[in-house]
């Protein structure tokens, strides 16, 4: 696997999920385990540019894939624009869902750019736009029990605006 740009070769139990490979074997604990069943989104990472739940995929199925985790987006002192926007807008509280929210939001903006529609896209034949409603729907696979949603949408909106 290529993780955050580095080639990492590891021998694993076939049962090891991508999430546990990252957290336990590569000690990249930024990706979180909230439910281990695809019900919360805290484990979201990008595989070959697409966001997925790393708890519901086996590490062995990612031979040769490029994985981007929160650690690959930015570091303290060198924040990714989305990380900085989350800090500015207080788009988190306890912080446990936060890496998943950030990875999901970076990928969600790419999905909008690529023309992938969502449940709330009014016209399936039109290019989807970055609206609060679109962001809320597209980010709904990431639960924040602290309830930072309103601030998270503000943070993503700011980043999207700057990208546009």
């Amino acid at each position, binding site marked *: 696997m290529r993780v955050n740009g580095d080639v990492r070769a590891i021998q694993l139990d076939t049962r090891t999920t991508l999430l546990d490979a990252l957290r336990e074997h590569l000690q990249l604990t*930024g990706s*979180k385990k909230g439910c281990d069943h695809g019900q919360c989104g805290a484990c979201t990472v990008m595989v070959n540019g697409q966001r997925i739940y790393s708890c519901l995929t086996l590490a062995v199925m990612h031979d040769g894939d490029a994985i981007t985790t929160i650690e690959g987006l930015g570091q303290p002192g060198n924040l990714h624009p989305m990380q900085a926007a989350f800090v500015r807008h207080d788009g988190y509280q306890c912080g*446990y869902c936060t890496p998943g929210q950030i990875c999901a939001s970076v990928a969600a903006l790419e999905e909008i750019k690529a023309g992938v529609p969502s449940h709330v896209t009014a016209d399936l034949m039109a290019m989807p736009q970055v609206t609060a409603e679109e962001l809320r*729907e597209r980010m709904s696979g990431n*639960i*924040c029990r602290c309830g930072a949603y309103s601030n998270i949408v503000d943070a993503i909106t700011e980043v999207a605006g700057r990208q546009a």
Partner: protein
Amino acid sequence: MKFDTPATSNPIDQLKVVGHPVDRIDGPRKTTGTAPYAYERHDVARNQAYGHVLGAGIGKGRVTAMDTAAARAAPGVVAIVTTLDMPRLEKGPRNTASLFGGPDVQHYHQAIAVVVAETFEQARDAAAMIRVEYARQPGRFDLAAEGPKAQLASAESGEGGAAPQEDRTGDFEGAFARAPVKLDETYTTPDESHAMMEPHATIAAWDGETLTLWTSNQMIAWGRTDVAKTLGIPEENVRLDSPFIGGGFGGKLFLRADAVLAALGAKAARRPVKLALARPLMANNTTHRPATIQRIRIGAQPDGRITAIAHESLSGDLEGGGPETAVAQTKLLYAGANRLTAMRLAVLDLPEGNAMRAPGEAPGLMALEVAMDEMAERLGIDPIAFRVVNDTQVDPEAPDRPFSQRQLIECLRTGAERFGWSRRSATPGQRREGRWLVGMGVAAGFRNNLVMASGARVRLDGSGGVTVETDMTDIGTGSYTIIAQTAAEMMGVPLDRVTVRLGDSSFPVSAGSGGQWGGNSSTAGVYAACVKLREAVAQRLGFNSAEAVFADGEVRAGNHSAPLGQAAGADGMVAEDTIEYGDLAKRYQQSTFAGHFVEVGVDAATGETRVRRMLAVCAAGRILNPKSARSQVIGAMTMGVGAALMEELAVDKRHGFFVNHDLAGYEVPVHADIPHQEVIFLDEVDPISSPMKAKGVGELGICGVGAAVANAMYNATGVRLRDYPMTLDKMIDRLPQVV
């Protein structure tokens, strides 16, 4: 420092750092995934093995046999500890259910074994190989059915509000009978789950007789005491460390099975053990907010003045547990000469009921504030006007006891103006926008302000840097940041010169995180330690400490000045103190207030309810950091929406367990459920509460939200629901015909 007279002016009043909406100082770590949570601490102990907890598969009965042969023989297994290996463990006074040991099963998914193995996968698989035989016993699983047997019960002032089992002022029955306008309705709230994102998790390591637990716990000192008691070891042999906590909401106030079983597993395995409760285990293994059945009676004069008010609540818990204090706010929120509150407690064999964000007031206001809306309609008075008429500036049960601050009317009026309340039609079911029936609702928010003793140690180094150490926790509340702001203000240094270290039981004992007391109390503890340090610094510099001004990294007195670091010298200086409280809380009623405003759309065909706008106007003392305080409030509002519309632990009343015990079955709000939320903090300083003049907001934010949603739904549809969560099945038969 003893705080027993109202605060006068002090260095916090400068508000150079305190009161500013600064970004959280732990933000860069949280957003980069470098803040370490309990399960992630690879660095603290070598050779960590993995534990997996097995939960009981029955609601009540006994474990008669456990066959662990296959599990012991499974690859990688290092140790297995079962509940039959030891008698029932002692438990701390804050736990109701036993955490481990002995054959008795008190509730479903009670921990009955821990398997320790080399890897997570091996431990989980081996745990599934344990064959368990049970002798089932019939249990009491239905609150309504047990209601007639319930006994009157009081509640101490713990994490929730206090209330005697029955409390009478005046002659409620007589006044209610005479009241020309009255209401007598019953409301129900379901069992709810904290569902914090980080599961309960612990790494345990023994060094001889001493035990270290890297864990996720809101109340470090309670946890330490209870670990010692549970395991039968001296308290000084226990260390807890919880620098980052992935949410708690009351679910991590107390010692839980993760810590106990990590410790037992580590002892058996003779090496450090890490484990987390599997998500599907959490709802039944840990605690929850108990369901309530609440009867409210209100009698009023035609002009709206309440003459009689009664609130009675029934809840259930395991033997030895306590009631949900759902009547607490009704003792204080509205005027009225004749009053009655009462709580009854049924014994249930469901998992332990205990504190969840704003225990008491959260479910209590879900009932009371709907009753107020219903009563206003019966009186033909606007719901805000009705509340204004019944405002009180004193404890209605003890009129010589004033509120330290009470701006409920201002909250409601400010909110009404900002929210456009005047556009609401008093007649329900009048506004239609496409598929949606649209309505507005209001509710008062109320939560008592509790204060707790809280200690801190403050260190000044030779370069003028300040380090604060306290066992206070940051569960998402912003403790790191407001503590840093407090120390920066007190010592006259920029925020980035302050380092804050939290959550370690080797630090001074703090208030901890609960009951929305943490922000005010823990910063007051830091204030106390800083006062001491300032005196020591002034003394060392030979300055008059009363004159000394700490600013810009310097100390000045008269025409003398010196850099702060110079006073500290190469060895630095340390001061430690604890804020303790006198009887101000007895002489004054300290509470926080809010006006919650909600606009909903209800799908005219399906009854799906979606929140369109939300506003909270809060009066809660000095706001130490408007940015993180606002986050506390919007988060609580979000949880309030969940309680109103979707959250319910569904009880299987035959087998005695919560059926929907994962995050797919127990639905909490997602992004799409929550609109942009507005929060307004009214200007307020409360010198009665602490030297910080602050109060709590983290629980105020949920108090009243559910009722505001319910009232908005009624305004939208004309359908009055009194049973939470207000899901579409409860109103589908009462909605107008689909055209």
